[in-house]
């Protein structure tokens, strides 16, 4: 490795080594030399708008802004001369002349800080009305650092109405200082382009085109703008009621298989906000609305179960855990393996999944580890799993020359994949999007096919036939008529390129023709060597298969150690789960797929929120959610990602593994002597070396199904649209309901 060239510069009489292409501000920050700045942000390009970072540089005229001035060899920079300080004070005064700044000069500022009595929480007459006072105001901080205690300019209040009509966050542009961070993050980082500056000069404002609401303007509600805002202009509707966060915990989002890192903001008992982590290797801070805004309302839903409950003729009765465990153990004892059906959610943590499969095998003696993804995919489960478990890492998309997205849309989910595809398209890759509705990739697509999913297989077949210059079959006639010439051009680039990526979205799972589509995708992968990236909502699907939480697959059996490893052979009747046969007992572990379930005498429901159906569970076991539990998930990329407990479990709720272990102990069956998560991880270490601190991506063997899979024929998959543990997010999170209604 060659040593990187360094440039020597002097800041405030201190000689430091800077790197070429760094700005003065970046070099100074690396050496903890403080230069105030409001518009510069680490992952955004330089802008030079706020003028607070002015410095003196020998040989340069005037006062250059350090965020736009690149370092040069031998530069002599001074950041704290009296002149620079005076200039900064003046700049800040000008900034504050259009920003309500009573917090700086108010006689009651100390009380305000302590009690945070603002309009948001108390009556209008008792508090300062100007800002959310959430202690995240960089402007306040900078005024303190610069030492500004008075201002000489009259204050101009712009008197814009506060915009509260969009979900998730409010906008008070009276507090906006036009630093442009939100506009830049929206356009340059998220490649979305909802926000822009409007007008100019004194009347400049920020917002979408034509003064539309954000929801109408195609906002993805990723919240990047809210995170970027240095003032209180943008504030999260839910979080602002909790006041100031007391701590933060880095964890992994459990809402889909991408595995984005979230920095949860917490108080003693509550998770009040979730922020992106721009240093995360998985998604680089590109999180979606579900992770950013969908957590607080879900985990603190007023509907959450706090204690175990038992159905009685007069309704539900709260019972103690001893009673609940005894009841469950009693019902499970003496059952034949065929009499009970245990359904495990793919959105559990890896540790819970490991215990769940042990429970089913050791306690009930059954091999039927049912799961909602098997119900959803029916006869196509094996081919989908082969595709999903072999999904390429997201960075494969970065260097792609051709990209085809099938049933994929990243407006309200799968942002890291969607933004990567957009970046590649901007860099010149040919992007083609295939969906049944207009997707957010269409703007940058060479061709956007908006056709019913019954034709997707045709479009894929046509693409392949064009790539190999084959003759168009008759069934493609209408497609050729509509997109023929564009398609020829795009397929030309596809066939010239050695790096094509197929992005498979959750749309194919919902399609009744997924079998055909999956077969076409397999052909593209095998015959045309397309790399496949799969985005799906089964968070820990990879974890399920690694842990063997699937019928007929033993723990660790699916993990590939050498590339020559053979496929795992699975008998077709094993993955067929009979959903018509009446059972004595059904036990749902984190799942709520009631629509597909057969009739049963007794229903145990182990979850956090009530199901959306008429069949009432007979026994309810309340669980702690991923913000209250520790463990791991294995993402679509095969990464083992840590989930950390951010707050204590809600009321009397318990982790899934604890409940399962306790029932097994009560029944005196199985060998599940686990006291905590690390003891389970110790067991898993025998399957995955070094678990849970696994650096390497986990690779999987293929599944080979022997025989024909009988379909359960329970109709179309349950509504899986962004749900967690079987409960649609839209039912719990008010804003998600709004955006889903808009999407139709």
């Amino acid at each position, binding site marked *: 490795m060659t040593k990187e060239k360094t440039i020597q510069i002097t800041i405030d009489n201190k000689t430091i080594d800077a790197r070429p292409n760094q700005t003065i501000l970046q070099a100074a920050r690396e050496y903890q030399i403080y230069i105030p700045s409001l518009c510069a942000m680490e992952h955004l390009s330089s802008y030079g708008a706020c003028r607070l970072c002015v410095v003196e540089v020998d040989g340069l005229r005037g006062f250059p802004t350090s965020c736009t001035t690149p370092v040069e060899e031998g530069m002599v920079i001074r950041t704290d001369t009296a002149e620079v300080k005076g200039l900064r004070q003046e700049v800040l005064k000008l900034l504050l002349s259009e920003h309500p700044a009573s917090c700086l000069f108010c006689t009651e500022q100390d009380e305000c800080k302590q009690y945070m009595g603002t309009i948001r929480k108390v009556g209008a007459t008792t508090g300062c009305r100007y800002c959310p006072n959430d202690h995240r105001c960089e402007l306040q901080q900078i005024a303190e650092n610069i030492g500004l205690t008075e201002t000489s300019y009259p204050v101009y209040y712009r008197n814009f109405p506060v915009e509260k009509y969009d979900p998730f966050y409010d906008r008070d542009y009276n507090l906006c200082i036009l630093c442009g961070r939100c506009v830049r993050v929206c356009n340059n980082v998220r490649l979305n382009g909802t926000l*822009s500056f409007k007008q100019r000069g004194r009347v400049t404002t920020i917002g*979408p085109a034509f003064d539309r609401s954000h929801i109408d303007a*195609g906002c993805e509600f990723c919240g990047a703008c809210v995170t970027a805002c240095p003032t209180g202009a943008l504030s999260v509707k839910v979080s602002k009621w909790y006041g100031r966060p007391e701590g933060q915990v880095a964890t992994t989002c459990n809402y889909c298989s991408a595995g984005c890192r979230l920095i949860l903001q917490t108080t003693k008992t509550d998770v009040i906000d979730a922020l992106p982590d721009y240093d995360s290797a998985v998604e680089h801070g590109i999180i979606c609305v579900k992770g950013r805004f969908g957590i607080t309302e879900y985990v603190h839903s007023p509907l959450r179960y706090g204690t175990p409950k038992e159905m009685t003729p007069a309704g539900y009765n709260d019972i103690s855990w001893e009673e609940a465990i005894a009841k469950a153990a009693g019902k499970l004892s003496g059952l034949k393996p065929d009499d009970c059906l245990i359904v495990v959610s793919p959105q559990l943590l890896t540790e819970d999944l490991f215990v769940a499969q042990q429970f089913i095998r050791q306690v009930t003696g059954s091999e039927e580890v049912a799961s909602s993804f098997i119900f959803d995919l029916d006869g196509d489960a094996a081919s989908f799993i082969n595709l999903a478990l072999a999904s390429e890492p997201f960075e494969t998309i970065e260097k792609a020359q051709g990209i085809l997205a099938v049933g994929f849309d990243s407006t309200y989910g799968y942002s890291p994949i969607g933004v990567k595809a957009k970046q590649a398209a901007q860099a010149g890759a040919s992007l083609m999007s295939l969906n049944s509705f207009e997707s957010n990739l269409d703007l*940058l697509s060479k061709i956007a096919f908006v056709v019913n999913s019954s034709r997707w297989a045709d479009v894929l077949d046509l693409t392949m036939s064009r790539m190999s210059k084959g003759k168009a079959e008759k069934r493609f006639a209408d497609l050729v008529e509509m997109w023929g010439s564009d398609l020829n051009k795009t397929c030309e680039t596809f066939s010239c390129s050695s790096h094509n990526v197929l992005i498979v979205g959750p749309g194919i799972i919902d399609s009744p023709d997924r079998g055909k589509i999956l077969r076409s995708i397999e052909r593209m992968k095998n015959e045309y060597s397309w790399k496949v990236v799969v985005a799906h909502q089964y968070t820990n699907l990879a974890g399920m298969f690694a842990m063997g939480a699937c019928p007929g697959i033993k723990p660790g059996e699916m993990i590939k150690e050498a590339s020559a490893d053979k496929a795992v052979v699975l008998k077709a009747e094993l993955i067929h789960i009979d959903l018509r046969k009446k059972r004595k007992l059904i036990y749902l572990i984190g799942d709520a797929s009631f629509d597909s379930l057969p009739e049963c005498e007794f229903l145990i429901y182990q979850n956090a929120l009530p199901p959306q159906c008429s069949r009432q569970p007979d026994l309810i076991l309340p669980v702690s959610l991923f913000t209250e539990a520790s463990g791991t998930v294995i993402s679509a990329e095969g990464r083992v990602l840590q989930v950390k407990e951010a707050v204590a479990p809600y009321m009397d709720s318990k982790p899934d593994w604890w409940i399962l272990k306790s029932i097994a102990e009560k029944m005196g069956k199985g060998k599940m002597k686990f006291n905590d998560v690390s003891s389970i991880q110790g067991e898993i270490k025998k399957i995955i070396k070094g678990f849970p601190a696994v650096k390497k991506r986990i690779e999987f063997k293929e599944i080979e199904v022997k025989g024909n899979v009988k379909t359960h024929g329970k109709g179309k998959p349950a509504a899986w649209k962004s749900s967690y543990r079987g409960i649609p997010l839209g039912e719990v999170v008010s804003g998600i309901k709004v955006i889903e209604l808009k999407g139709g």
Partner: protein
Amino acid sequence: MYRDAILKKFDPRLDNILFILHELQDNNPQHYLANADIEKCADYLNIPYSYVHGVVTFYSMFSLKPRGRYIIRLCDSPPCHLMGSESLLDYLKKKLKVDVGKTTADGVFTLEITSCLGICGVAPALMMNEEMIGNLTPERVDTVLEERRQTS
């Protein structure tokens, strides 16, 4: 669609945005950029609507409100001012029964003010769409307005 014909004249490159917008505005019967114009331009250049909207609102030569068939831009720079443009403005306001920036009820004229048109030799002067008219007097203004009204 006349808009597609306009777009075809330009390469879909971002640096053509101002040319495209001007041409769209000039060819709009009401001399303004309708939402449809902005959307067309954005779709053609593959950029967000908000970007184009931002550009349009930044430059004062673009209008987001419908304007008359003829846009009268009366010069109010010093030479024209000295030669009586101020009283001409009052006359025009009274005659057209509109304020600066407004359009007559019949949709024929929009009254606007402009900086120097560079024809100070014939001050006071105005610009009627693309045409320069100098040596203005109230009588001459009457004739010019009448002519335009006839042809419209």
